[in-house]
């Protein structure tokens, strides 16, 4: 008799589990999931903040020997960037003047919404993060998410107070990209791969791409705007009998240590 009761409870639980999956797939569960994330968001934020501090501390301890070299490298990079900013300011002034003379409206800068990373994908192959900003803050699916001016991913699901970001290093992520430094700015597709690397694929054999080139989004075939930095080419794989060449691309972003990211809102 008792055993029958337990069996009934187990069958009931199994039916409830299957029903939950089915209801989620048809979207009925969205308000419940939204409510759950709303309730758990403060706890996730707090635990995430502690985890971020611990991760940073462990990172510093682990890399203390390389800090000197890294410091020199960063100083050189800052000097180069200052020079580039100066040139860009001049170019912007010229561009504004030409646009004014042609009667074309001036370009509005993108608005950035800062968002705290409150959760990561709970396993080791797919790559998503949860951020503490949602539709109430103006976040919409398809918006680009950046950090240090480089593309982190795109908004996939949006709840009232949280959103899920599909990271560019996910094996299923694809975005159209171009080589900013190569002659003719050849285009291709960036895809993620397991192990946090990026591959630039579908680049024509006739195009010349080389290590060190900067890869940016091309703005083709999606909501992601043109010109967001993805990374730099590390190595090029060009085979004589291949239709396309591929390149290994590395991003400067440490995807395992994201704490604050920025959602890009394009001006209407």
């Amino acid at each position, binding site marked *: 008799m008792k055993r029958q009761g337990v069996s009934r409870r187990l069958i009931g639980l199994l039916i409830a589990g299957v029903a939950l999956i089915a209801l989620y797939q048809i979207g009925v569960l969205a308000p419940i999931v939204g409510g759950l994330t709303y309730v758990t968001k403060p706890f996730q934020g707090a635990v995430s903040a502690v*985890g971020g501090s611990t991760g940073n501390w462990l990172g510093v301890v682990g890399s203390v020997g390389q800090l000197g070299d890294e410091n020199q490298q960063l100083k050189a990079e800052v000097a180069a960037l200052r020079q580039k900013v100066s040139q860009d300011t001049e170019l912007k002034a010229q561009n504004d003047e030409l646009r004014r003379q042609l009667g074309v409206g001036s370009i509005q800068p993108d608005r950035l919404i800062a968002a705290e990373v409150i959760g990561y994908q709970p*396993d080791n192959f797919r790559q998503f993060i949860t951020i503490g900003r949602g539709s109430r803050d103006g976040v919409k699916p398809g918006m680009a998410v950046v950090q240090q001016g480089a593309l982190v991913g795109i908004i996939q699901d949006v709840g009232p107070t949280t959103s899920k970001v599909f990271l560019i290093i996910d094996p299923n992520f694809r975005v159209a990209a171009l080589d900013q430094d190569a002659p003719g700015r050849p285009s291709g597709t960036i895809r993620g791969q397991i192990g946090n690397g990026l591959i630039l694929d579908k680049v024509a054999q006739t195009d010349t791409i080389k290590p060190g080139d900067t890869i940016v989004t091309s703005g083709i075939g999606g909501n992601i705007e043109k010109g967001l930095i993805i990374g730099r080419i590390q190595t090029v794989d060009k085979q004589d009998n291949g239709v396309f060449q591929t390149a290994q691309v590395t991003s400067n972003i440490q995807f395992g240590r994201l704490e604050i990211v920025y959602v890009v809102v394009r001006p209407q």
Partner: protein
Amino acid sequence: MRFLGGGAVILAAALMQVSWFGHVRPFGVIPNLVLIAVVLIALWYSATAALAAALGGGFLLDTASGSDFGLRMGFFGVVALAIVAGRQLGLNAGSAITGLVSVAVATVLYNLAALIVLGAGPSLIVLGRVGTELICNLIITAVIFIIRANIGTKAHTPLEPGGLR
């Protein structure tokens, strides 16, 4: 009361897994705390508690995840039922070896299922990640067994062969 305690453990494990371990990543991977909790609850408590923990923990991870909703609920449910079936067949649920082997098998199978859903093949990086996660999960499980032995928690509730609770 015990049910609430189990729920709190699963909730805490899910929070730690997606938020704290997401940042800290020992050896570059995120240990699967919820999977460990589900395996140990299935070994130590009743069949109903095991399935409820599996479905609840799976649901929490599925909602936190950006992909494959239902994978974790389904997999954890199968793991819980398999362990309960093993206990009915006389598995020594209180032994640390049983716990470690169960967590190891569940970790490998879970990653295999995730890779099949993703459509990815085996590679050195994949094997390295699964191996590292396996080691992390085993260390955490061993620590839980040591703590449990030292605080003198009473032994698991045995299931009679063929019996359910």
